[in-house]
């Protein structure tokens, strides 16, 4: 009697630990699969050299009051370092000519410079923060900056159809402790290897924002770029839409176009 109970108990313990073990190995497998997918996404989207686009930003509060901003964006792809990007502000008019230069570093804080035309000075900004609202919008600079594999660790969750498309669902965990989110859930389209939806979770692991990326078009036969990004903040009910226009690739930009000295000459 006692023996049979003991043996049953033993079986149960073995089963549980076996499951725990397999859960652990599943975890490792999910992380590896996540990383593989992320690497593939980066690989498929590399080789564009440089690009330019125009962005219209529409901010909306709970009561549908709207506000508009307009910027231009230029990016340069670099082989062994993070990408370089330049943002030129056009609207509102009182910030026209302000330019923001960013050298993306995978682990270290990005290098950032800002040119203020009203002050006629270039200021280097030393801040670990890139999670605050970009121009008062629901996007942070972090949300808009280029994707680098090293910025996150990954976990593959499942396959799922979202917005009528087959997707991988992945979790991204930012490496930078100054990131605004400990966790993101990303729906990555299986065909494009581009995100069509991202959920951002805040420090208390509750859903803070949802990004929906739509109207993808293919450029140069391989680079997928969206026309519309919509970010909704669930905490304050505000939302921001980015309308992208006039994507251009291989426009002949080089590192000299992304130096501090060029900032003053932009307009």
């Amino acid at each position, binding site marked *: 009697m006692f023996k049979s109970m003991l043996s049953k108990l033993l079986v149960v313990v073995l089963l549980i630990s076996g499951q725990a073990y397999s859960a652990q190995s599943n975890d490792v497998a999910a992380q590896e699969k996540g990383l593989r997918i992320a690497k593939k996404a980066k690989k498929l989207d590399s080789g564009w050299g440089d690009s330019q686009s125009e962005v219209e930003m529409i901010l909306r509060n709970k009561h549908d009051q709207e506000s508009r901003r307009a910027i231009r964006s230029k990016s340069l792809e670099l082989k062994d370092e993070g990408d370089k990007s330049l943002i030129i502000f056009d609207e*509102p008019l009182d910030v026209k000519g302000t330019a923001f230069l960013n050298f993306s570093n995978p682990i270290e804080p990005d290098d950032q410079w800002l040119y203020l035309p*009203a*002050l006629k*000075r270039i200021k280097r900004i030393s801040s*670990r923060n890139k*999670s605050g609202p970009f121009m008062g919008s629901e996007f942070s600079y972090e949300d808009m900056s280029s994707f680098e594999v090293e910025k996150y660790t990954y976990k593959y969750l499942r396959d799922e159809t979202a917005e009528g498309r087959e997707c991988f669902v992945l979790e991204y965990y930012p490496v930078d402790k100054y990131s605004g989110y400990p966790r993101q859930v990303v729906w990555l389209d299986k065909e494009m290897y581009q995100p069509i939806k991202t959920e951002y979770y805040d420090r*208390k692991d509750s859903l803070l924002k949802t990004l929906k990326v739509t109207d993808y078009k293919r450029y140069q036969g391989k680079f997928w770029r969206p026309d519309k990004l919509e970010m909704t903040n669930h905490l304050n009910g505000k939302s921001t839409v980015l309308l992208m226009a006039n994507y251009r690739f291989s426009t002949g930009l080089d590192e000299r176009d992304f130096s501090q000295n060029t900032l003053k000459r932009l307009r």
Partner: protein
Amino acid sequence: MREFILKSGVRRPFVTLLASLLFIIATSWGAGYLTFKSDSRVFFEESNPQLQAFDRMEAVYSQSDNVAFLIVPKSGDVFTKENLSLIYDLTEQAWQTPYSSRVDSITNYQHTFATGDDLIVEDLVLDPEVLDTQRMEEIRAIAVNEPLLAKRLISTEGHVSLVNVTVQMPGTNAEQELTDVSTFVRQIRDNLLEKYPNTEIHLTGLVMMDVAFAEAALADNNTLMPLMFLVVMVAIGLLLRTITGTISTLLIAIVAIVVTLGVTGWLGIYLTPPSAAAPIMILTVVVADCVHILTNMFHEMRKGFDKRQAIYNSLEHNLKAIFITSATTALGFLSMNFSDVPPFQDLGNMVAFGVMMAFLFSVTLFPALLAILPIKPFKQDVKEHSGLMAGVSNFVVKNYRILLPSTLFAMLIILFLIPRNELNDRYVEFFDESVPFRMATELMGKELSGVDTIEFSIETGTANGINDPKVIAAIEHFSEWLRTLPEVDHVNTLSDIFKRLNKNMHGDDPAWYKLPEGKELAAQYLLLYEMSLPVGLDLNNQINVDKSSTRVVATLENMPTYELLELEELTTAWFATNYPELKLEAASISLMFAHVSKKNINSMLLGSVLALLLISPILGMVMGSVKYGVISLLPNLLPAGVAFGIWALLSAEVGLGLSVVIGMTLGIVVDDTVHFMSKYLTARREKNMSPEEAVHYSFQSVGPALWFTTVVLVAGFLIMALSTYRVNADMGVMTAITIVIALLVDFLLLPSLLIAADKIRKDPQPVEENSGIVTQN
């Protein structure tokens, strides 16, 4: 109908019992749907202009519900490694608070400074582990000199500090959300106190206030209700000396309460801290009905009638009076519908309904219970009370010539004290000193800054208008002027940020601590600043989406409500005079309460007067005489007035709770008058007694019952005075005072007035010393 009611209880007790049971079960089922709301918003109607202004403010900027951790190091110095570590830990943990959107502390304050052409933006305390004495002194100097922090997050002496957590609760299940937040922050506090025993941590803020509301109401229900039942039991037991009577009375009270709560639930009305007092009030009023029936029944039984006949006789004598008194009491409570505060309307309706239910059950179920249960009258008539009544009535009849002018004069003097009362409805003082929320808030008021705020939205009407140098200058001028007011502890304003950034962008040269000169420069500073802030510490709580308006928040020292209203007027007038081209809107929770209590007093006065106008003709009709209707006005009106005069001596602060007392007590006060006068008139008309004899008769027949009910009512409302929720406690004390005054008026002034009035008309008849006392035994 009358006959049916009279007979149902006595002749068919079991049928009545069964029918009542079915009715009770059906209605009380609804109690399951009762929900409790303690959100401070329940005090305001949807249409309340201050609530709407506040909602607009929250919609444009962000919600300002908050939990504040007040940190008081025992060493008296915040700037030590240990205490900065504590604040750092607390800040980190506070981000985990459910629904939190922002945490502000001196450690995560985004300190900006310049090194050459570099602008550095970083947490004021990046890592508390590596702090040395020199760095801590630097941090102290920065913190206490930064207008954003000083007197808000850190005292100028550096001895207390605040960590402020802003929460945005979705409000889908408000009570649960409140509990989630409060449980979590208390857990943080307890954990930190264990790790840092040399510090006190207190919790305050709007969320904690709502929590305090809920907990005070809960405590009342857990402690005051049972106490109330006990007191009623003891009072009836001692006064009437009957166990069956006591139990039956309590049963009727429970039934009336349960049915009322059930119907409230069926109707989907939620309970609030004020309306949670309804059960205590219903219980109190029910007892009065039953006492009248019981005393009369015993009286009849002693006369030799058998039990059932005695019950029948008692009902017959009392039905009309109980109905009238119930109806007038209900009317009085219904006058609370004139209140601008929804919970008081609910309270009035609930008690009014409960009173009518109590009437229904005390003339049906109550007799049925008495008929079924064994009951014996106390052997002797309650001698001491009759003796007391005889003493009082002899005294009154003998001295009415002196009593009439002297009581009137005394009361007149007290009435002159009424204007000494002043409006005060500080929501901190809704709780008594034993409530931790109040303690924490007052401590904060003493050591750091008050809790009251006025939030000003300065609106330019054009997109990016706040970057206009003229507007920034206006914002600065207004902010600096606010800082000169002695009542203002702290001003949170955008102009400080502009000045600081301008200094930073000029290599931290103090000479540049001034407003930027051009619109573009200001706009570009803001762009730069916003880009370098972390999530949760942005400017969206100060600037709206198209940068056309900004919010300036003035934190005020603790002050009475009327001063707050004066300050609001002063500040908005100042702005309108100086900057007519800009729009200023003021709003805050403090202002909402200040306005509503002022408005509430006016509308409650109107409501009480209207109720009285309704009640007086009823009384006139009942007594069949205009003259006595007019006479009844005096004893009906005086008690509330005198009570407010006495209040001026006791506390002199009038707020939400007190403004409804007149309406509430009106019915009860009228009851006393009705009972006394109707017996007086019976004696005069049916028994042809002289005024003096009629007064004796009244004292003998209703005196004891009035005396009992007053004792029970006063006991009941004084128990409410034990509530930690001061709105209810004050209401209890005032009601008790009013009821005592009413009895004094009915025992001293009213009979004197009746004798005098009836003697002026007819020739005075000589009164024989002893013939006046009418004994019925």
